């Protein structure tokens, strides 16, 4: 199809689709007037059921934990997808070796290194705080995991990326990432063994404070590890490619 024909097809369809959506939205409740029972039951029972104050976290990690298990593995498999898609295939590897693979790239400047080290500790603490309070306040394993991953990535960067590559902590990160994903599934299996059914929350919910929610904080920690590992893997994989090309071009 020519670009013009394509655009005409799109424009006609878009008008139709917008009409259909408008027709559908006319049947939704007025904005701000939602009365569904599911949400109200969940909001009313999260605190009595789990002593955790964050109803969304209880939904994500307890009532609807299976969805989260699936989501964790989506993240997990996408990392492996990125690794597989950006892997260096045989031809490239041979060419890469010819121009000196493994040579140290340009090191980071002294000030960058200092800034990285100064920043890392507070950012790490922030990440840990967000992960550990996931069941009490907004935030949790996912949000904290991204913060942790970013902090670690900055640390690797400021320490000089190629040095990082030579000792291959990538495989450690890989293990952490996979371990986080497996951890979530294992917590579910724990419910099967110690409770009665898969993903059952088998730890007492407690009364108040950090140690409430039963397995929810554990799940949050597993997710935090997984997300942090996944982010580092993905970002370094994109960076890896760049460095490889730069080496080749010299």
């Amino acid at each position, binding site marked *: 199809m020519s670009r013009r024909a394509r655009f005409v097809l799109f424009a006609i369809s878009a008008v139709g689709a917008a009409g259909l959506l408008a027709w559908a939205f006319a049947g939704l409740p007025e904005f701000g007037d939602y009365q569904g029972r599911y949400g109200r039951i969940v909001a009313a029972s999260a605190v009595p059921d789990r002593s955790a104050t964050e109803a969304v*976290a209880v939904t994500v990690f307890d009532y609807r934990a299976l969805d989260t298990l699936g989501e964790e593995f989506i993240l997990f498999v996408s990392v492996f997808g990125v690794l597989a898609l950006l892997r260096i295939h045989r031809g490239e590897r041979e060419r890469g070796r010819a121009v000196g693979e493994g040579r140290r790239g340009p090191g980071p400047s002294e000030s960058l290194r200092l800034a990285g080290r100064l920043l890392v500790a507070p950012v790490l603490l922030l990440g840990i705080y967000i992960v550990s309070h996931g069941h009490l306040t907004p*935030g949790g394993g996912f949000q904290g995991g991204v913060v942790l991953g970013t902090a670690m990535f900055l640390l690797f960067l400021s320490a000089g990326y190629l040095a990082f590559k030579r000792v291959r902590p990538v495989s450690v990160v890989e293990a952490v990432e996979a371990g986080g994903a497996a951890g979530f599934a294992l917590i579910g299996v724990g419910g099967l063994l110690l409770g009665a059914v898969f993903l059952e929350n088998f730890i007492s919910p407690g009364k108040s404070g950090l140690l409430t929610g039963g397995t929810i904080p554990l799940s949050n920690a597993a997710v935090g590890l997984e997300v942090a590992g996944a982010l580092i893997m993905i970002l370094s994989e994109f960076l890896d490619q760049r460095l490889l090309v730069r080496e080749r071009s010299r």
Partner: protein
Amino acid sequence: MTTALQATILVLVAAGGLAVVVTREPAKQAAVSSIFGLLLAALFFSYQAPDVALSQIVVGSVAVPAMILLALAKVREGDREREGSGEEP
């Protein structure tokens, strides 16, 4: 008051979405999409969804733009290499 605020942010989000689409230069687009992510986060805060808003901030304004910029950098290096070696693109 809340309604007026929400309406304003909604209009901004609509405009932001359009801006992301019409910004054809990818590096600029990464920046615009980062702002779009923040607008969405503001909308979610006004919808009383702080959890989602935080996720949106870390994903839409940090992780995804970082991935885009790294991918772009990778692509540019590839272009430079191609020019250097005289290959036809």
